[in-house]
């Protein structure tokens, strides 16, 4: 029981740092290793850690299963929509250069947006998959 307490407190302490790390990986991906996919996995790992220590119901109170399910198509939709907007603006699908009047800045914006899309889908998927495995019971 004592060990359990240590686990719980350590987890609580560590969680904000994991989240910060995920965000760092997400937004620093332009300059260092990392990007949407890695950040998504780290975010999901945070939820999974929480679920392992505090139990599935507690985790689902913080991140409802419905939210995770919603995030799965949402992220991909963000990604594809960026492409479609580029199309509407007269460029090829996923040509970010047309997003802003200045090509390279358009590229930066496009990359930022699609990485967010990847993050949302990956985090949602991994969390939802874990929920459905763990919620299966014996």
């Amino acid at each position, binding site marked *: 029981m004592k060990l359990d307490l240590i686990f719980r407190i350590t987890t609580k302490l560590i969680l904000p740092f994991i989240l910060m790390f995920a965000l760092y990986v997400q937004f620093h991906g332009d*300059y260092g*290793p990392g990007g949407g*996919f890695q950040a998504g996995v780290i975010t999901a790992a945070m939820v999974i850690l929480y679920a392992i220590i505090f139990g599935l119901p507690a985790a689902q109170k913080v991140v409802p299963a419905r939210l995770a399910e919603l995030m799965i198509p949402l992220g991909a939709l963000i990604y594809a929509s960026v492409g479609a907007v580029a199309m509407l603006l007269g460029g090829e699908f996923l040509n970010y250069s047309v997003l802003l009047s200045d090509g390279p800045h358009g590229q930066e914006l496009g990359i930022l947006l699609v990485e967010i899309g990847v993050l949302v889908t990956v985090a949602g998927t991994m969390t939802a*998959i874990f929920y459905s*495995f763990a919620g299966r019971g014996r």
Partner: protein
Amino acid sequence: MAVFSEIVSHYNHWITIFLMVSGLYIVVARGNMVKKLVGLSLFQTSVYLLYLSPGKILGGTPPILDPNFAVYSNPLPHVLMLTAIVVGVATLALGLALVVRINEEYGTIEEDEIFPVKDDE
């Protein structure tokens, strides 16, 4: 240096081939469904080495541009393998979900115990 790189190049290939083949062997030879999936991911993982070894330049640095470095390893295989990792884990998740369902329906995850089960409609 030349001799060294010669050895390294061969060693790389041999290990890659060994990993690949043993992964494949596990998939084909084993009847346990979870173990098959482990083998499958070993098999897929070994492919990373096949792509990334030729991408490396001796003396190069990771492809993050910086005025202090001039030689970078090839970034394209990295991108391809990121995609491959994602595909691998997606396949794994789906395979595991099927295993869970099969276990519920048949009560076992050994192929040898399932195939004799005859159920005609």
